[in-house]
């Protein structure tokens, strides 16, 4: 039998550890999603060039773009859909226009659906890799260069790449 004080100390330690565990779930969640690739998050850095092309099948890729609710920008994909062979390099453009009267910095956060296919979505170049600064009233066309990894399992025939545009934390006014 342990004394009351030492038992209380141990139980309090469990409480502190579980409080820490609650916060540890934040990085663990990211790590878990990255390892399993289940959250639709794509890599934030440029991928290598494709090794080869799988001509035996085609994948349909659709594009979506949305601005965050309080974001005075318009943001649209110039191509709605492409059909490509896995391994084919493809460039699509997204057009963004700053409708507000002030310069703003924005970040685009990508998401691929279905989530398990996200890891096979390889971007060589993307406007989402860095923040975009637009002057008041400026319109810009922004490219994404990507390919679908030929290792993509057969069951995926359709994919959607979607972007949501957020006001960057670096914009002075918030």
């Amino acid at each position, binding site marked *: 039998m342990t004394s009351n004080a030492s038992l*209380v100390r141990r139980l309090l330690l469990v409480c502190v550890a*579980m409080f820490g565990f609650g916060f540890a779930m934040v990085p663990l969640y990211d790590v878990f999603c990255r390892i399993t690739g289940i*959250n639709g998050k794509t890599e934030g850095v440029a991928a290598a060039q494709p090794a080869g092309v799988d001509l035996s099948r085609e994948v349909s890729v659709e594009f979506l773009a949305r601005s965050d609710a309080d974001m005075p920008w318009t943001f649209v994909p110039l191509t709605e859909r492409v059909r490509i062979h896995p391994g084919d390099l493809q460039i699509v453009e997204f057009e963004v226009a700053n409708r507000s009267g002030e310069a703003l910095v924005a970040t685009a*956060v990508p998401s691929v659906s279905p*989530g398990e296919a996200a890891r096979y979505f390889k971007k060589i170049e993307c406007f989402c890799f860095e923040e975009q600064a637009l002057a008041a009233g400026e319109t810009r066309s922004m490219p994404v260069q990507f390919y679908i990894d030929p290792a993509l399992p057969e069951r995926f025939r359709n994919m959607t790449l979607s972007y*949501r545009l957020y006001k960057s934390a670096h914009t002075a006014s918030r």
Partner: protein
Amino acid sequence: MSTEQTGALHPGEHLDHEHKPRGITRWLYSTNHKDIGTLYLLFSLAMLFIGGSLAMVIRAELFQPGLQFVDPHFFNQMTTVHGLVMVFGAVMPAFVGLANWMVPLMIGAPDMALPRVNNWSFWILPCAFAILLSTLFMEGGAPAAGWTFYAPLSTTYSSDSTAFFVLAVHLMGVSSIMGAINIIVTIFNMRAPGMTWMKLPLFVWTWLITAFLLIAVMPVLAGVVTMVLTDKYFGTSFFDAAGGGDPVMFQHIFWFFGHPEVYIMILPAFGIISAIIPTFARKPLFGYESMVVATASIAILSFLVWGHHMFTVGMPVAAELFFMYATMLIAVPTGVKVFNWVATMWRGSMTFEVPMMFALAFIVLFTIGGLSGLMLAITPADFQYQDTYFVVAHFHYVLVTGAVFGIIAGVYYWLPKWTGVMYSERLAQTHFWCSLVSVNILFFPMHFVGLAGMPRRIPDYALQFADLNALMSIGGLLFGLSQLLFVWGVVRCMRGVGDKASDRVWEGAQGLEWEIPSPAPYHTFETPPVVK
């Protein structure tokens, strides 16, 4: 142990052989487990009526389709505060109150191990709920994001009372953790000689396991409300995709707390039922060891099933299958318990006093709630049931006819021991039958409107649900009024009106708590009993 006994008796002072301090300070400064247990139970009863009044605002609004009495924002505040008050204010403190009263008596201890912590853990609660309820009167209103306060509803779209809500939840958490630590230390260190682990009454076992669940998950709740607080006021982005966070992560962290929490609210009720059934069947509990193992397995499994609350967020199929099978696995230990209760009654000499009636209603109605839970666990079916009244029906069957009926059964069972007076059987039976009928009028039709697609947490609904909603609202009002009979019965006993109860109270009652006089003296087991 207690300091009151050392005080010298002044001449002319009335000799109170129980050395009870008098007046309000008896309650404010109390370190007596029986006084604190009483405080917890009365507090919980008050919260039951406050939470119930909020529910009646909901049922009044839903009595007819269209918007009648309240605007949707206020309706959302009602669902939110009703849930918070019932979970943290009514059910949990009632169980802590029962533990305070009964655990020391059942294990032969003179008091709780940490009596001053005990005092503190109770008195934090009225403060926490004063803060929470005060938000109802603030500009912008009370929290309205549901008791589950999903981000971004609780961050981006919440009113400024969120800060008060977070503080209140922190205080409730501190209170629960202190209560849990106290119960664990008491059970570990203060058992009477001979009271070995496998002789512990099942109520003590279930509370021990519940207390471990509490210290494991209440800190996680504290973590998640802290993240909500910093996201809303201090510019962090735990749940905000704009800053690299993820709102779905809120649900993962919340339900990692939330699922063990639902077992926190039912395991002590299992313990109460396991005490009552053998008494009125006049047979020892069937399968004691399997009951202990089943309780522990439920507690362990409860950490592995949180995903079943969020099947529709877009989880991969593998995760959905895992959570589906893990959830269904819980039906096995729960089934063991139900079968053991039934087997205890098998060929017993049963009588049907009110505690037994509530216990029997518990077994039947809790099983209904458990089975609708199994339906919800089926991933593809859950896509239809998610966020409908079917879910509301499910968790009210396990929480009202489960946890609350368990608490009421326990109160009737031990009330003669606490007050020394037998409750009025006729009044209590009336209370039972009124409650049984009205609770089913209230909650059973929710299954049907839910399966037909009526969404929860919405103040208006499609016309085809009108008749059943009117019926449910009437059931709700009747159920609320029926509980006044309960208050009447309890108050009668507290005022000493009724037949004197014997020490054993019930013919078939077994256990240390029945060896002491009725009413239980202010100090008991100052010399530990010897358990053979």
